[in-house]
C-alpha cells in the first residue's frame, strides 16, 4: 500500500492535490501525528494563506475609492461571477429563440414557395463569458501549435549543426524580448494584406492574435530544443553513425527522444508566454476572447465593470495554472517513457 502511495505521490503533487497523500497514508495506518503535521503543511497553510489574502483584499479594497466606486472586494467579484454564469444562461435562451424564429420564418417561406432556398444562419447574439474563454483557448492553442511547428524543427537543426546555430542565434536573441504590443500593428497590416478572401474561414482578428502568440511564444521552445539536441550524449550519436542510420532515422530514433525532456520544458514555457501574450493581443486585435472582454468592460465604465474585470483576472490566472499543470503532466509522462 505505502509503495503504491509513494508511486502516485509525484502525480498527485503535480495535480496540486498533494495533500491527499497524508490522508491516504493515515487511511493505510501510518502514524497520524506525523501525517497530520504533513496535512497541515500541505492543505492547512495554503488555506489559511488564501483566507488571509481574501480578508486583506476585502479590507483594503473597500478603502480604495475609484471614480467607478470602491474597488470591489471578494464578495462583489463572486457576485459578478455568478452574474456572468446567469448571463450565459439567458443568452443561450435567446439563442434558442433566435433559431425558433428563424425556423418559423423558413417554414413560412417554404409554405409560400416550396422551391424557396432556405438555410440556417448562425446565431447573431453576443458571445457569453464562456464563449470568450473558449475563443481564447482556441486562439492560444492555434498560435502555440504554429510556433511549435516552426520552433522544434529549427531547434533540432540548430542543435545538430553549429553553423546553423551561429546563423540563427543573433536573430533569436533580438526577437525573443519583443513585446506582443510591438508585433501586433505589423501583424495586423500583413494579415490584412495577405489574407484576402470574400468568405474567410477564420476571422482576421483571430489570425492576427494567433500569429502574435506564435511570434512571442516560439522562442523558449526553439532555444530549449537546440540546447537539448546539442547536449545529447556523443556516444549515442556515434552509435547511430556506426549503425549507418539515415539522417531522418537518426533524428527520430535518437535525437528527438533524447532531447524530449528539454523540448517539453520549452513547450511549457512557450505555452505560458503564449497565454500571457494572448490577453494583450486580443485587446488590441479585438479578437472576441478574454482580452476583449477585459477591454470592453474597461470601456463600459459601469459600476460593475471592475468586479467583472477581476473575475476575468482570476479566470486568466486559473486557466494559466491549469495549462501549466497539463504541460507538466505531459512532460512527466514523456520524460518517464524516454528514460525507461
Amino acid at each position: 500500500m505505502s509503495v503504491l502511495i509513494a508511486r502516485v505521490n509525484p502525480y498527485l503533487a503535480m495535480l496540486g492535490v498533494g495533500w491527499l497523500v497524508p490522508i491516504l497514508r493515515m487511511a493505510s495506518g501510518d502514524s497520524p501525528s506525523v501525517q497530520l503535521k504533513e496535512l497541515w503543511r500541505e492543505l492547512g497553510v495554503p488555506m489559511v494563506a488564501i483566507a488571509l489574502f481574501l480578508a486583506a483584499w476585502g479590507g483594503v479594497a473597500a478603502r480604495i475609492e475609484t471614480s467607478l466606486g470602491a474597488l470591489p472586494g471578494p464578495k462583489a467579484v463572486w457576485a459578478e461571477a455568478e452574474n456572468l454564469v446567469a448571463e450565459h444562461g439567458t443568452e443561450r435562451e435567446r439563442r434558442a429563440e433566435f433559431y425558433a424564429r428563424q425556423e418559423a420564418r423558413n417554414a413560412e417561406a417554404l409554405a409560400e414557395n416550396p422551391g424557396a432556398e432556405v438555410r440556417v444562419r448562425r446565431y447573431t447574439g453576443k458571445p457569453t463569458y464562456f464563449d470568450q474563454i473558449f475563443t481564447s483557448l482556441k486562439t492560444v492553442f492555434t498560435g502555440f501549435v504554429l510556433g511549435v511547428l516552426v520552433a522544434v524543427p529549427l531547434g533540432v537543426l540548430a542543435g545538430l549543426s553549429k553553423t546553423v546555430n551561429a546563423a540563427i542565434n543573433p536573430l533569436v536573441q533580438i526577437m525573443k524580448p519583443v513585446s506582443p504590443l510591438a508585433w501586433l500593428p505589423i501583424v495586423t497590416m500583413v494579415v490584412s494584406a495577405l489574407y484576402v478572401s470574400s468568405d474567410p474561414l477564420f476571422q482576421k482578428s483571430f489570425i492576427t492574435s494567433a500569429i502574435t502568440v506564435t511570434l512571442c511564444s516560439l522562442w523558449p521552445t526553439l532555444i530549449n530544443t537546440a540546447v537539448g539536441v546539442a547536449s545529447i550524449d556523443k556516444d549515442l550519436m556515434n552509435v547511430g553513425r556506426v549503425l549507418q542510420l539515415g539522417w531522418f532515422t537518426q533524428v527520430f530514433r535518437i535525437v528527438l527522444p533524447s532531447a524530449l525532456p528539454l523540448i517539453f520544458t520549452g513547450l511549457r514555457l512557450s505555452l505560458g508566454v503564449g497565454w500571457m501574450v494572448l490577453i494583450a493581443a486580443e485587446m488590441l486585435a479585438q479578437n472576441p476572447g478574454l482580452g476583449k472582454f477585459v477591454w470592453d468592460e474597461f470601456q463600459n465604465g459601469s459600476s460593475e465593470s471592475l468586479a467583472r474585470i477581476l473575475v476575468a483576472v482570476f479566470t486568466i490566472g486559473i486557466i494559466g495554472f491549469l495549462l501549466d499543470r497539463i504541460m507538466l503532466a505531459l512532460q512527466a509522462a514523456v520524460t518517464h517513457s524516454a528514460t525507461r
Partner: protein
Amino acid sequence: VATTVSAQTLDLERDELKFGFIKLTDMAPLAVAYELGYFEDEGLYVTLEPQANWKVLLDRVITGELDGAHMLAGQPLAATIGFGTNAHVVTAFSMDLNGNAITVSNDVWRAMKAHVPAGADGRPLHPIKADALKPVVDAYRAAGKPFNLGMVFPVSTHNYELRYWLAAGGIHPGYYSATDTSGQTGADVLLSVTPPPQMPATLEAGTILGYSVGEPWNQQAVIKGIGVPVITDYEIWKNNPEKVFGVTAAWAEANPNTHLAVVKALIRAAMWLDADDNANRREAVELLARPAYVGADAAVIGNSMTGTFEYERGDKRAVPDFNVFFRHFATYPYYSDAIWYLTQMRRWGQIAEQKPDEWYAATAKSVYLPDVYLEAARLLVADGHAKEGDFPWTSDGYRAPTADFLDGVEYDGRRPNAYLESLAIGLKGRDTPATVRTTATGGAPR
C-alpha cells in the same frame, strides 16, 4: 421606385452581416433595430460588435471585416477625399442630431466660473462661451504650461465642434498641415485624440484638462465628480448632424438590396426612438446599459437620453432635443450637412488648398446617398411602417440656410467659400497654414 415591392421580395445579396459600433449612446438605432427584430423583419441576420476606436472601426469597414458601421460624419468624407486614409466610403443614413458636449475639469471650471455671467436664478447663464475659458488659457500660457484638450478623432464632429466653440471665443485651436498631422500649428490650446470611453479616465489622470465627446461620457464625468460639462453641441449649432451609418462604395454597389433593407430597419429603429415624444427612451436606456452595447450605468445614460442634461452637479436642465434620432428629418443624408464638415476640414487645414464651391457639392454627392434613403423610405411607406409625411421627398439635399450657431454666423451649404470667409479664425480663400500662421493666434472674440 416601385411602390408595390414589400419586404419579403427584396432579393438580398447577403443576409449575414456584421456591423461595428463605438460605445456611445448614438449607436442606439443599431441596438434597437437588432433587439426589436427590425433587422430580422428584413431577413437580415446582423451581428453587432463594439470596436476599440474610430480608426480601427474605419479600417475594418474598409478591409471588409465589417459590412458597415456607426461612423463619425467626417469619416466617410475624409476617407473619400483621402485625408487620413483613402477609400470611397458612402452613407445613406444619418444616425442622429446633436448628442455631444464639452466638459472641463473641476479646476478649470472653478477658474472659468468667475468669468461666466449668472442668470436671474443665480445659476450660470447658458450658453457658456469660450470667452470665459480664454483668461484661464492665457494664465496657463503665461505660466508656460500647455493647455491640453481631448477630442475623439481628427475628423470627428467633436473636433470641429470644440474648435468652433474655442474659435468663437477667440481661442485658436491650431491648424493641420502636411507636416503637422496633429493639428497644433499656431494653437493656443493643444487638441489630441482619446477614444470616447477613455475620456473620463484621461481627464481624471490630468493628461487633459477638458474634452469634447458624445454621451454618456460627459454625464459620466458629472456622476464621477471629475468634471463639469459647460456646453452641449445643441447650443453650439442647433440640430447639428452627428453620426452616420457608413459602408464602402464597393459594398453598396455589390449589395444594393441589402443596403436598402439595412436602411429600412435603421429608419424604423430611429422612428421608435423618437416615437410619442420620446416615450420609448426609458426602454432604450435599459437596452443601451447592457454590457454588450454602451454598458455604462443606466442612470448615466438616462441623464441625457431622456431629454435632460446635467451640467454642474445638481444643475440639471431640460434639453429636449439633446438626442434627436428621427424628428427634423434627422435620418435624411443632407448634402448640406456633408458640406459643413468639408468646410471645417478646409477651415482647419485638413484640406490644404482652396476648392471651388462645385467641388464641395460634387464630393457631398459622391458620399451621401439620399436616393437610397428615399427608396428605403418609399418601401417603408408601402409596408405601412411609416407615413408619407415622415420624409422630405422633394428636398434637393440642401437644408435652408441657418444662423442657429452659437455666434450667429449664417451657414448656406450652397456657398461654402463665402461661409469660410465669414468665420474670423480659420483658413479662407487661398490661405495655407504657412501664410496665416503669424497672424492667426489670439483672434478677437466675435
